[in-house]
């Protein structure tokens, strides 16, 4: 059995999916599965439940928050960590997601060269604030 972290990435933007795929190709600790909508994500999660959800926030139809809710209720993923990727720069927006239980919020644009490191950082158990956090990573540490 593989020790890789299985990531389900959901983003409606084809280009961002390509860049994210390339970013994950730089790190062999992850196994990436991608799809372009919440509906597809539900189908894929039913077949193979992921270890980590990487969700775009703003998507047509079912947005990231709704996708997350349905993944939790319909696919039994309530214990699965979720990292949102959002082009919404407002801290308040990120804080709301963190308050609702998100593991972290990565603001777009993200650096593909350090994306996997940021995810690893976010998945570490909360140990207080470190000396330097990447600019676009907001992590729930309270």
């Amino acid at each position, binding site marked *: 059995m593989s020790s890789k972290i299985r990531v389900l990435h959901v983003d409606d*933007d084809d*280009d*961002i999916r390509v*860049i*994210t795929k*390339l*970013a994950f*190709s*730089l790190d062999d600790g992850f196994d990436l599965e991608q799809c372009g909508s919440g509906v597809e994500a539900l189908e894929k999660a039913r077949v193979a439940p992921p270890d980590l959800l990487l969700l775009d926030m*703003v998507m047509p139809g079912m947005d990231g928050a709704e996708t997350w809710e349905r993944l939790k209720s319909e696919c039994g993923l309530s214990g699965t960590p979720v990292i949102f990727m959002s*082009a*919404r*720069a*407002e*801290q*308040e927006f990120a*804080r709301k997601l963190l308050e609702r239980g998100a593991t972290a919020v990565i603001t*777009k*644009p*993200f*650096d*593909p*060269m350090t994306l996997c490191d940021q995810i690893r950082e976010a998945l570490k158990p909360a140990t207080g*604030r470190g*000396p*330097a956090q990447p600019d676009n990573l907001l992590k729930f540490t309270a």
Partner: protein
Amino acid sequence: MESILEKVRNLTSIKSAAVLAAVLTAVMTLALAVRYLIEAFTRGQGGQFFWEDAFEAALLLALSAALFVLAYFICKQTRRMEAERQSILDGRMQISFQLDAMKMHSIVAESDLDGYYRDVNENFEKLFGYSRDEIIGQNASVLYPGGRDNEKYKELRGLITRGEVFTGEQELITKGGRIVRVHSTIVPVFDPEGNHLRTIAMSTDITAVRKAEADHFLTVLLKELPDEVFIYRVEDHRIIFMNDRALERCGWTLEEARGKAIAETTPDFDMAFFNAHIQPLLTGEEETVTIQARNQGSWVEITTRIHVLPDNDPVFVSILRDITERKRQERHRLQVVSNVSHELRTPLTSIKGSLRLLKSGVAGDLPPEGAQLVDIADRNTDRMLGVLNDILDFEKIVAGKMEMDMAPLRLDEFVKEAIAVNTGYAVEHRMSFRAGELPEDAVVMGDRNRLMQVMTNLMSNAAKFSPEGEDVVISVSDQGSAWRISVADKGPGIPPEGREKVFESFAQLEPADGKPRKGTGLGLAITRRIIKLHAGRIDFESTLGEGTTFHIDLPKATVEKAPGGESLEIAA
């Protein structure tokens, strides 16, 4: 006039004498005629009638009648002349009374052809402060601010010279330098041949009238202003005046309001908030302060300043404006800007991600020119993101939506981190950042990300303006109740006229060295707001040609050793 009336009077006397003479002569002639008539009947005997005597008697009778008629006409004309004389005398008396009344009421001055005073009345002396002896012989231009160059004076001289009359208002200056407003009628006086003899100016002081009108206008304006106006004493915050709008909301009459404390004007009154609002006025730091607050379900903007009443009693004047609608529009605009920002960030994510991957060689090695072009594209994508962030931040500030996530912050670590984070600017501008004094006990309460944004703004500016190879020094110093972070560069400096402008939105100063630098002009406006939200201050010192040092003062967080433990307890 005097001699004509005298002549009329003399002529009347002569005529009276003539009438008397004519009447006497007529009577005598009549008597003579009667005598001749009697003689005509009586001189002959036996009823002989002397036609000769009768004829003489008839002639004398006719002469007598003629004399009576003459006396009658002379008498009639004399009466008419006397009546006219009396009427002229009455008229003169009237004019004399009116002239006296006018002189008592008005400011009257008489001047010669060239505008030199020949006479003035008492009112003139009283208003302008010149004695009669002092002003006579002086030119009227002394009463005009600026003298002969005064535009009004020049206009009036032109009118008078052309023989025209002036009626209107003018502003004149007294001997003591006080400006008075008068309504004047200035009339040139001519002789029957049309020669300009002199000029008479009659004026009324309307300074008080105009001031009263202005005061009345202001009172009405103040009363009917759609904003609420409160005037209350600095000493004990007791209300002196509230305008109609304010009284209406509070449900008071002005009499009821007087003497109440300002805190009683709303159930939402927050004394701590109020004290923080007025503090800069009491310290003299600001002349006017403005805050936004929630009041009984609405958003209001309160602007306050200190005013000193004529009796030297200092009062606060607060103007409270309902900005609920403005807030709604600001929120809407923020939403639009936020959406636009999101829409632009999504494609920028792809562009920036692609460029980063290209630069890293994931897609294969790039030829040197290709790498240079990718670098240019990458840098400019960052600039575009910077602009987007600034605009979004600025809109948040406008909408009052910028929130701070406060936590204790050790400034020594924070400054070292800021230097590490901003190394890219040092490399780009071929200069370096150096840490100066960094006390280990310097701790403030702050939003780490927002303060880092401030440091990035100040440090990137310093890097942009720093000469190549020079250091920009970042240090922390103790300022009593605050810790000061200083960013000192050796750039061209900021000219004094740019002092206030640098913190304005979209301000781009003309650089002292003439070299323009890139930027949105929003950075320092945002920085100032972030510092203000930390209850701090930002300022700078600059010497042209030597450099600029920006200071940020942040209130110290109180640090106490927890009993029996190593950890620090920090409270704002």
